């Protein structure tokens, strides 16, 4: 069944969209990742213009993260104070990201920028994930426990404007969380990702937040920052396709439920190797598109 997407202005098979949403949903259910970093390049592959893919994916992530954030709110595993600081940083980052986006769109370079960002990001994530999962497979075989320091002092503790974060039990400067939020905001605006894959490790290793509030707080930030990003893309570029977002989300919701159930039954390390290979594969395809001479050297854009 072909459906006409009003903003992307292309006809796509509705089942293909549901399937893509479902596939990425399964993966996010299995691994607890947002999936924006996989969905956006998959949308390029099915012919959605990259600017529409990025803006629409930001919109879709609002829906996905609202679900997750609500669950964490009920379990009281969100540090609201820290979340607000991260959101403030994120809003500045997203506003800056949109400026870059619009400038490069006018220069005709936005597609290339988005692709380069994805090659870099997926390359790093895929490689790290592969090493990490191979190492943990070895570790489970060797059965040697690894000890981690519970609390450690680093450069973060030397910065001014300190604030007490009750839920996380921290007394640190607001500068690092503002910076982390801003970086995530820039990524959201340019790449249409939630940024959890960067925020979560940054919260643990840079801010030193306790693991139990990390996921909830990151989802809290993602809800507001992707909502703001959606609003910016809608006003600056008119590239948010609510019909596309809706189909992807329906697929993703069902997929996530299936994924959570599969994830419980299968060994996590082996699944992570699979995800890592998938990420590297998508990265390689995008890289080849940039590196190999395209069959058609000319591209046309309607309007000036």
């Amino acid at each position, binding site marked *: 069944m072909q459906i006409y997407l009003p903003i992307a202005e292309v*006809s796509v098979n509705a089942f293909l969209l549901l399937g893509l949403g479902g596939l990425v949903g399964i993966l996010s259910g299995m691994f607890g990742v947002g999936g924006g970093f996989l969905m956006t390049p998959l949308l390029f592959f099915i012919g959605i213009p990259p600017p529409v893919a990025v803006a629409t994916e930001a919109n879709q992530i*609002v829906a996905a993260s609202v679900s997750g954030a609500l669950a964490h709110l009920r379990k009281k595993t969100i540090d609201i104070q820290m979340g607000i600081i991260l959101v403030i940083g994120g809003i500045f980052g997203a506003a800056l990201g949109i400026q870059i986006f619009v400038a490069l769109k006018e220069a005709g*370079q936005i597609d290339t920028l988005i692709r380069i960002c994805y090659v870099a990001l997926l390359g790093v994530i895929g490689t790290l994930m592969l090493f990490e999962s191979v190492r943990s497979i070895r570790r489970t075989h060797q059965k040697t426990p690894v000890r981690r320091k519970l609390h450690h002092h680093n450069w973060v503790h030397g910065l001014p404007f300190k604030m007490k974060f009750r839920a996380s039990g921290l007394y640190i400067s607001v500068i690092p969380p503002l910076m982390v939020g801003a970086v995530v905001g820039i990524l959201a605006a340019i790449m249409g990702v939630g940024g959890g894959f960067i925020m979560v490790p940054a919260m643990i290793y840079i801010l030193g937040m306790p693991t139990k509030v990390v996921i909830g707080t990151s989802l809290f930030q993602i809800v507001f920052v992707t909502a703001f990003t959606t609003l910016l893309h809608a006003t600056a570029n008119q590239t948010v396709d609510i019909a596309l977002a809706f189909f992807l989300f329906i697929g993703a919701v069902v997929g996530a439920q299936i994924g959570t159930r599969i994830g419980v039954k299968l060994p996590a390390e082996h699944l992570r190797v699979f995800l890592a290979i998938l990420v590297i594969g998508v990265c390689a395809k995008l890289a080849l598109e940039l590196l*190999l001479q395209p069959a058609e050297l000319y591209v*046309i854009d309607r309007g000036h």
Partner: protein
Amino acid sequence: MRSPRTVLGVLILFLLTPMVAAKEEVVSALSQYRIAITANFDGSEIFVYGAIKREQPPPDERLGVVITIAGPHEPVTVRRKARRAGIWVNTDVVEIKAAPTFYAVASSAPLTQILNDDEDLKHEIRIEEMITSSDTPTDVADAQTFSEALVRIRQRDGLYVETPGTVAIQSQTLFGTQVTLPANLVKGEYTATTYITRDGVVIDKQEKTIRVHKIGLERWIYNLAHEQPVTYGVLAVLIAAVTGWLASAIFRRI
């Protein structure tokens, strides 16, 4: 000094010429004058037909019928990729002032046989003549290749179509053809023009307008997004938040 007979001869010729030119007229019609793009719009067929009206028996010169359908004209930016630091990026750019979003030329025989080059230039019938290049000078030396690329890409996408020999003519009077409009049609006013030629010269033409418009939810979404982007953005966020909340509420029970 000219003789009165020559003057008279020239006068008679002048009087006769318009009569000769107007002796055949074209009357055309379309199977539809409005096309609605809905969510599941998958292209459309349009039937263009008509007759050649004349008072005298048909002349001996070769008859030709050319039917064109042109979509709304709009500016287009054509970019060329080149390798920079190992990757293919857009470099040179040429802005084309106006090009039709869709253009189809159907004819009763190959255009070279039924249309003179001069007439073609005058009436702008071939696809190449529909592209209006920009008045502002570009620093790109081979700007022509950019318009060629535009035609090539749109031909490949089925937006520019030339179908010689698809207009059927019966007894030098009735004619008809079918033009396929693709799924990726742009809304706006389309012009269907029918030309009749004798020995490569256009004798008469008639224009008809087709309105292509979006209907239903898609149209509403498109208009809202472009006319009230802030409201649209807020709506997009609200829809996402509500669906997200609903999904979590539903799956908590399962």
